[in-house]
């Protein structure tokens, strides 16, 4: 009975699975196009002239030109924006890499008073919406005299990074065999020595994951710099881009060119570091 059944079912099954495979490939391809569609739009828009961008909605430009990119670069004073963005993103990442691996190590490996309470507070902070504390943060920046400086943006970003950085790094440090810790203790290593010589170097992918996540977050942060800064010479890239769109007649080719200039460094960073980045993210879920 069973043999007859399978023999009858086989041709139909093969046909069905072939249809399923074709459908799956089509779905794959379609979603791949959808995933990169905004970038295609940026590239094509930035290669069009001001008139063509209004008349030709199709991705391939009829008369491709680099003038738009050059014009946008000059109109935005791009080097200044770039330096300001690099300062904000760089300082944020540096502070995050100094502060949170230390905390993650303590929560994963050490034992100390209030450990559970402190950890619960850091994790709980994840659920206070950013917009809820945005106004107090801007007022605090003002009270501390930080308005107009990169610190007005950097310090809230670093603080906002705390929950995810601590959760990720704690999970990663916990997965490091405790025998290594014990061996280092027997060799006479101090707690900081163990952290710095054993745990920090072994956690490359988790550290890269945290760095990439926060570099990108700081790079594209628009609201904080827009609220704490009214000096165009100190604008980072997103605020410069926004200024471009708020002019009376929107020149979409320039907006797309500026968007492209913002996104390209992130894509390069991600593609270069993705092996560590994705491993770090996955490791933190498994752990």
């Amino acid at each position, binding site marked *: 009975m069973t043999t007859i059944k399978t023999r009858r079912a086989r041709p139909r099954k093969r046909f069905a699975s072939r249809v399923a495979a074709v459908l799956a490939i089509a779905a794959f391809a379609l979603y791949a196009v959808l995933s990169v569609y*905004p970038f295609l739009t940026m590239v094509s828009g930035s290669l069009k002239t001001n008139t063509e961008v209004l008349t030709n909605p199709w991705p391939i430009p009829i008369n491709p030109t680099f003038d738009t990119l050059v014009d946008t670069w000059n109109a935005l004073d791009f080097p200044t924006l770039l330096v300001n963005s690099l300062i904000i993103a760089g300082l944020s990442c540096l502070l995050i890499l100094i502060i949170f691996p230390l905390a993650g190590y303590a929560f994963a490996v050490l034992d100390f008073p209030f450990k559970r309470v402190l950890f619960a507070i850091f994790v709980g902070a994840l659920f206070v919406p950013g917009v809820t504390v945005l106004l107090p943060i801007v007022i605090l920046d003002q009270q501390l005299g930080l308005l107009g400086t990169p610190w007005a943006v950097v310090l809230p970003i670093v603080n906002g990074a705390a929950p995810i950085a601590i959760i990720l790094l704690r999970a990663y440090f916990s997965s490091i065999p405790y025998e290594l810790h014990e061996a280092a203790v027997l060799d006479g290593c101090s707690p900081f020595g163990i952290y710095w010589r054993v745990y920090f170097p072994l956690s490359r992918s988790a550290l890269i994951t945290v760095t990439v996540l926060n570099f990108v977050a700081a790079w594209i942060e628009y609201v904080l710099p827009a609220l704490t800064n009214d000096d165009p010479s100190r604008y980072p890239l*997103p605020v410069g881009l926004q200024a471009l769109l708020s002019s009376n007649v929107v020149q979409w080719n320039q907006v797309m060119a500026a968007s492209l200039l913002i996104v390209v460094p992130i894509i390069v960073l991600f593609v270069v570091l993705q092996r560590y980045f994705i491993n770090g993210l996955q490791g933190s879920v498994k752990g």
Partner: protein
Amino acid sequence: MSGSRALVTSAGTPAPRRRASSRRLGGRFTGLLFVAPAAALFAVFGVYTIVYGFSLSFARWNGFSPNWTWTGIQNYLDLLGANPPLATSVRVASQNTLVVMVVLPIAVSAIGLVLAVLLNSIRRFRALLRTVYFLPYVTTGIAVFYAWRFVYEPNGSLNAILSGLGLTSLVQRDGFLGNPFTSLAAVLFVLIWANVPIAMLLYLTGLQTIPESVVEAARVDGASTFRTLRSVILPLLNPITALVIIIQLREALQNFQVFLLMTNGGPVDSTQVLSLRTYQLAFDQASDLGYASALGWMLAAVAIVLAVINLRILRSRQ
């Protein structure tokens, strides 16, 4: 090494345990020193701002006068109904937020799961496709939101594609963000697009932890691919699904930048959500900052309650 392990495993008696732990710790308070920088920063930018904002939600303040006027829970009452124009705008924003809270987690977990299963079943192009599918997550932000805005413009590429396919009835003359009937769906689409990658990656991680023998056993028992997926793999992925849902609910409640940068709530409040309303009360029509704080804390209350419920469910399952 084996000696130190023996020390730990034989720690049934109190004396060696204490010796081992004091060695391990290098002092009871060393850990606090390690946490101190993070805690100090959090004390200023976390605790202080939370206390400040929470207090302000019980007061009136225009942002300039030196003193607050304490009003108790009046701000909350006004937002909930005592101040009709304000309460109406909050109700509209709540309805839209609710739509986002329902659609976003369902769509993101469904699409993320399908992509993860497909990716997990292929060998060729897997790494390349994973990179491509993950790009929206790392690049999301103002630049990408503007690109989607351009796509949705009246003379943007979405209208061109629709008319090219002969679907002229779907073409939007005012653009997809200009029509109050399509604007919320258009922004939601971008929000889904930006959040699918993290769900996909989480599901992919979950799928890789399922032993092949489990799937193999189901197949030997005669289960079809679909049946295996539904009855064997999906239940094993429940913790991942709970995680995806909690992240997406948080996103639905908190992400106001996508709304701010794509529509700023318009047209006619069709994309108004609670987080954006909070932002506008604080920075756009900054007449009374107490309202902004009160609305922000109502939002926080919802977020915290949902997180607690979700964690309870997650824990009871395990």
